[in-house]
């Protein structure tokens, strides 16, 4: 189901357009740096980058309030960054250093940050959805007007936890926004090879949840749809669901030889690069001068390069701390 309101688009405020461009550029540059650092053996384990999908996190997170909660997957560096986790703390985490947002214990797939209500960083496909339902349940029971936003890939749609979570959220009318990042592949499995019904928004509608499919390469469309959905959720309208149609430009992880898709398909999608799309339309409208663009890039570069310096200067958590935090630390009576 496409968003019935998608035709109504308010004119873009150039200031805001530049802000969204910067947000996407920050993620792009962070991710490109991650790939470079992985090759340099600074980052280890599994690394999943978000290059190509930046408009989704940028558009959706733009619409949240500081007290709202965010749940994400192992492809979450961009979500963490745009939610307000410092780039340095993110990179230091991937270096495995104590200065990382989880003391180096989580790594790339497990970024968490209590201050920004960023609940991770879940590497079990669909594992975050029930958590989001519970966070929303707590908000509802406590009478708080927060929204919980839950990001997950279209691969998660096949898991039981997806269906159980949507049903619970609808049944209890919980303040949660489900954001399905449909990049067409779950590792090597194309959506059409894993779902009998590939219209994902329709599945959500089957649970009586208002659901729209949105062009996930168009950050303005994402933002607009997310704003309406978040407003509806916050004002007691029950759970909402966005299917964000996007594409990952890079391999699933650093171990993926990409045997399952044609290079030409990737190139076709790259022509709809979300950063280029917004940049070109702003340039065409005379809203982005050459120097503006250069400035945005320089700003993002400066931030990421400072983050690398921060991570490089990191230290190892002492081994004696290994057994800390298996259980909660209680202060002496």
């Amino acid at each position: 189901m496409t968003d019935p309101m998608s035709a109504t688009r308010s004119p873009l405020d150039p200031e805001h357009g530049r802000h969204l461009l910067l947000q996407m550029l920050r993620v792009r540059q962070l991710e490109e740096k991650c790939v470079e650092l992985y090759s340099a053996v600074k980052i280890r384990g599994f690394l999943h980058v978000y290059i190509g999908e930046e408009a989704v996190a940028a558009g959706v997170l733009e619409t949240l309030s500081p007290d709202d909660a965010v749940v994400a997957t192992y492809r979450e560096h961009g979500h963490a960054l745009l939610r307000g986790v410092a780039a340095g703390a993110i990179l230091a985490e991937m270096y495995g250093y104590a200065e990382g947002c989880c003391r180096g214990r989580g790594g790339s797939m497990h970024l968490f940050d209590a201050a920004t209500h960023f609940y991770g960083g879940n590497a079990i496909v669909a594992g975050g959805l029930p958590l989001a339902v519970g966070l929303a349940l707590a908000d509802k029971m406590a009478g708080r007007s927060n929204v919980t936003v839950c990001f997950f890939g279209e691969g998660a749609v096949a898991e039981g936890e997806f269906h159980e979570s949507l049903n619970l959220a609808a049944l209890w009318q919980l303040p949660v926004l489900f954001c399905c990042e449909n990049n067409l592949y779950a590792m090597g499995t194309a959506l059409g090879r894993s779902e009998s019904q590939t219209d994902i928004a329709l599945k959500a509608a089957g649970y009586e949840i208002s659901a729209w499919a949105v062009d996930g390469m168009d950050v303005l469309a994402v933002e607009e749809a997310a704003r309406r959905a978040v407003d509806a959720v916050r004002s007691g309208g029950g759970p909402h669901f966005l299917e964000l149609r996007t594409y990952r430009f890079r391999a699933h992880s650093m171990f993926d030889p990409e045997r399952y898709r044609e290079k030409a398909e990737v190139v076709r999608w790259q022509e709809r690069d979300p950063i280029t799309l917004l940049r070109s339309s702003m340039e065409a409208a005379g809203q982005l001068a050459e120097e503006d663009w250069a400035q945005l890039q320089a700003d993002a570069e400066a931030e990421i390069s400072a983050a690398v310096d921060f991570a490089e200067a990191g230290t190892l958590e002492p081994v004696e701390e290994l057994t800390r935090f298996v259980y909660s630390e209680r202060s002496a009576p």
Partner: protein
Amino acid sequence: MKSSYREALRAGIRDAMQRDPGVFLMGEDVGIYGGSFAVSLGLLEEFGPERIRDTPLSESGFVGAGIGAALGGMRPIVEIMTVNFSLLALDQIVNNAASLLHMSGGQFHVPLVIRMTTGAGRQLGAQHSHSLEGWYAHIPGLRILVPATLEDARGMLWTALEDPDPVLIFEHGSLYNVAGELDDNAGPVDIDTAAIRRPGSDISLITYGGTLPAVLDAAEQLAGEGIDAEVLDLRTLRPLDEATILASVTRTHRAVVVDEGWRSGSISAEISARITENAFYDLDAPVGRVCSAEVPIPYSKHMELAALPSVEQIMAAAREAAGARG
């Protein structure tokens, strides 16, 4: 011939597919992607998509379907990417696969094989690194295999498929790239007995799977210190080959169990209990144990290493047992 552990597993799958048209492999990304750890690479081209069957991300669903297909007369091999994800299928494995035969009064057999990766050491963090095979060994109705060598990687699968009951095979992630010589005629192996990988007279070092290389390494170094260690590879965690364990301990009078699982409520605890129950008066020292630290496995390299059994810890435990007065 030269073979890696991964290639030996693949040869075992190919062999089973050729022997029995009822055998098929299913799991996430086993086909077009080539297997998340490349075990099934190339098999799709050889056997086609019916028998090298990609599944959606539905662990409970496709493991349950494997159980159903086994009930229906097929011989499914179900691959789960890692043991952590098998927890989504725990209901099907425990409540159906392991229970159906008994619950049905002996009427319904479940000749299903489930393969999965286990273990840490690759900085994959807490949701991809655990060693839960000992947990599964708690469940009556299941047979639990832990191949540590090329021969076992090659040969355990067919024997498992011939078993009329569900068999779980745990492949330690650190072993896939281990390479060596594998006999050209390598074929099915028994799945009932433990193996002595290094004979010795002073102490029995009992282990399995991913920790076997470290234990063999420790045994070599201990020899230099005048401690002649016997290394026992359990191969099967359920049912345990108690006879081989007890025979070894009765000869050496000392034992250390090395297990990447956690210590509390573990397979190492079970082995230690069996030794003290059955060979207490043959022991010259308390049974020692080297296990993983009781923490979710952390990402950072130094912390991950600190959490896992090390050669030094194994040697220290062996020295302590050997030094104890008989």
